[in-house]
């Protein structure tokens, strides 16, 4: 049985599965249920200065597939709407009752040292393990100069991080917003400010859908709607990219990362860990299925690690980072081609029509014995993978590397590159 214990920014937890700062972590009742279910840690829903905010009715929007599976989720809820004192009391009680779990507290304030330092000092005596600075909330709070309004300005990220670090001995995690042009600017700013770790991504600016009867965005509040924060499985690729950028950037390499964004299974979590994350945070999947999903996240990750021979998280943490490179570093001489397993093929024709209509006309139909025979035209196949992705049968269409005998050749070195960089010898 693999050892799932993890430490990030000095914060220990029995497993890397934390609940993200969000409605599931708004109060003691939910968090106790989560810890009973097995979650390794929580980030308490963002605290702010009193008086508490007031939330609207109608808060969530969703993107569902045809089976009503949640693909994407968005919300226009603000930070905790409970008095600060109540939250602090419950945090202390939870941490006392669950000493082995990570209890990190999210906070948000206006752009003054007094506000941020004051909040941090109020939280520290609860026994919480760390703080997470909410620089990401993209709706509502940003209109009051908080959340992403701070996170989108690197100088402000650095400044606030420094204020909080000076005010408390607690580890500080800076939660980054993806609503920026380059996540590295804010990650680097957080590091300069003294952040012990970053967490990302916060939610993405979004309109979940337009209600075509009300002619208004959803969630609709009395006939009007506003953009909300988007999360759920659909944002995972965006989150993975931003995590990878920070993990491989020379100026931020080694900065602990808590991965967030569309994580719902052990496999999702393993992918974030492989990109260097020390813990992962989950929200939408828990809000969709309840806290019980953590059982398989623990079980599945552990089984996979056993299968792969990884004893601890550190054994594979960050292993994929060196393989994330710039496009210019890819091997132009690599060739892969599709292969169709005729025994598995069920004759749906989707590979053909996808390739024929939208790609390279590389799958032809031949009359077969009782069913059509779909055949890859190797000369036309560019190895784009489209057919393999649209095939409904797992492993029916697979991609196979072709032996070319040619060396690793990048675009900068490529003969067809007008700005080709010639190797020193050839340049002579």
């Amino acid at each position, binding site marked *: 049985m693999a050892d799932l214990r993890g430490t990030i920014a000095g914060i220990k937890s029995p497993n890397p599965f934390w609940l993200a700062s969000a409605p599931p972590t708004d109060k003691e009742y939910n968090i106790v249920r989560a810890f009973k279910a097995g979650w390794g840690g929580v980030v308490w829903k963002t605290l702010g200065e009193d008086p508490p905010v007031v939330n609207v009715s109608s808060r969530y929007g969703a993107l569902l*597939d*045809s*089976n*009503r599976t949640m693909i994407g989720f968005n919300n226009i809820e603000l930070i905790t709407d409970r008095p600060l004192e109540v939250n602090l009391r419950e945090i202390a009680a939870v941490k006392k009752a669950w000493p082995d779990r990570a209890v990190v507290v999210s906070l948000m304030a206006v752009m003054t040292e007094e506000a941020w330092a004051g909040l941090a000092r109020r939280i520290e005596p609860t026994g919480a393990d760390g703080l997470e600075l909410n620089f990401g909330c993209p709706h509502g709070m940003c209109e009051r100069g908080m959340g992403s309004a701070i996170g989108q300005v690197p100088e402000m990220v650095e400044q606030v991080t420094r204020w909080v670090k000076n005010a408390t001995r607690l580890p500080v995690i800076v939660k980054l917003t993806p609503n920026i042009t380059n996540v590295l600017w804010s990650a680097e700013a957080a590091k300069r400010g003294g952040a012990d770790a970053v967490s990302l991504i916060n939610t993405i600016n979004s309109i979940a859908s337009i209600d075509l009867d009300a002619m208004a965005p959803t969630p609709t509040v009395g006939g009007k709607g506003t953009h909300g924060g988007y999360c759920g499985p659909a944002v995972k690729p965006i989150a993975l990219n931003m995590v990878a950028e920070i993990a491989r950037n020379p100026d931020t390499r080694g900065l602990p990362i808590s991965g967030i964004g569309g994580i719902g299974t052990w496999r999702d979590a393993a992918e974030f860990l492989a990109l260097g994350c020390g813990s992962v945070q989950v929200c939408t999947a828990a809000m969709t299925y309840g806290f019980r999903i953590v059982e398989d996240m623990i079980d599945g990750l552990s089984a996979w690690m056993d299968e792969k021979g990884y004893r601890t998280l550190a054994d594979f943490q960050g292993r994929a980072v060196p393989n994330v490179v710039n496009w210019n570093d890819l091997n132009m001489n690599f060739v892969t081609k599709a292969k169709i397993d005729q025994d598995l093929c*069920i*004759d*749906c*024709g*989707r590979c*053909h*029509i996808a390739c024929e209509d939208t790609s390279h006309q590389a799958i032809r139909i031949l009359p077969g014995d009782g069913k059509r025979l779909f055949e890859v035209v190797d000369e036309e196949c560019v190895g784009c993978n489209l057919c393999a992705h649209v095939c*409904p*049968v797992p492993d029916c269409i697979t991609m196979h590397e072709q032996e070319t005998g040619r060396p690793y050749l990048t675009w900068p070195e490529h003969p067809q590159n007008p700005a080709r960089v010639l190797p020193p010898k050839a340049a002579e």
Partner: protein
Amino acid sequence: MSGVNGAAHSNQLSLDRDLVSPFTALQAMAESSRCLYCYEAACVTACPTAIDIPGFIRKIGTGNVKGAARTILDANIMGGTCARACPTEVLCEQACVRNKAEAEPVLIGRLQRYATDVLFKAGVQPFTRQAPTGKHVAVVGGGPAGLACAHRLALLGHEVTVFEARAKAGGLNEYGLAAYKMVDDFAQREVDFILSLGGITVKTGVALGRDVTLAQLRQDHDAVFLGLGLAGINTLGVAGENLAGVADAVDVIAALRQRAAPPVALAGPLAGRRVVVIGGGNTAVDAAIQSLCAGAAEVTMAYRRGTAEMGATGHEQDLARTQGVVLRTWLAPREILGAGGAVSGVVLERMAMDAGRLVGTGETVTIPCDVVLKAVGQKLTPGGLDGLALAGGRIQVDETLATSLPGVYAGGDCIKSGEDLTVQSVADGKAAAFAIDAYLKA
């Protein structure tokens, strides 16, 4: 009074309850998501009317359910009946690629019913007729072939008069399909829907050869379509066929569909009567199951060959078995026994295959019974077809469904075009309408 079998099976069919329950919106959405939207899909090829099945299922999935119904009805105006009565297990669903990976096809028939039900419930007429052509076509027979032909002709701008021998239009949809496949008077609701397009006049109680002649129809109209069906009944050719208690299965089914007293009593004073159905086709199955529904105590189907050779599909055979029908094979009727002028039993000879030929073994079996229903096939009644060439006992047609007489076309069961199914008749009627349209515009 219902038979004793009624109490024994919680899933016992009745004459007024759906054999297959309609999908809820949730079921329809879940099932539609199973469709892979195949390219040049095998299910479409397997449908005699070539409904764009992936297309209509995708429309259900996107919430365009009335659009789905229009896609169905544009290819098959009786898509509602076909959704209920088609042997999908040997047509579209048999071809579904989901069978290959999961042994479970997309339930196309039930999705088709869902879509068409939504449209019918909304009372929407999705079609508009083209500009009037001034041409007038006579359609003989108000069954699936005739009505499908009439509808397409009306769409194309022609005027149509349908001559129907019975009291109601609908043909076998109204008089022949099992009651539990066509609950809530669906056949007439569908007829009403078809006629609501306009341009179609139905004259009931008018039979070809009795009330009107082909020559007269040809003289009074620009073209004629014959969708006569098979009105003649094959006989067993054995002694005792005239005894009280012997009836044609189609007459019993028609009576039950019309809520009329069947020609033979099925419900008995105690626990119903013992019925033997002779035959192995879908009509035999429908008669057998409905006899149980109508109160018969014991029903046996006797067929001269094996289950593999039965006209009834495996699905229909299973349905009969689960409803309590005893299927007996390799038994051919030799004599119907009587006592006091009424049936008392049937003597059957055990059959066998000998060098590829069906032969009697000389061994006989006697099944005591009160009722014998004959379901050994129907045939064309030649009355009124003067001058028309026949082939194999049916009306001879070419590939355009034109008969040997100019301007006279035929389709449905009265020609040999495929299986004797509603869907095939609709396909014929539609094809003939396009051929007639071309003929009228030539």
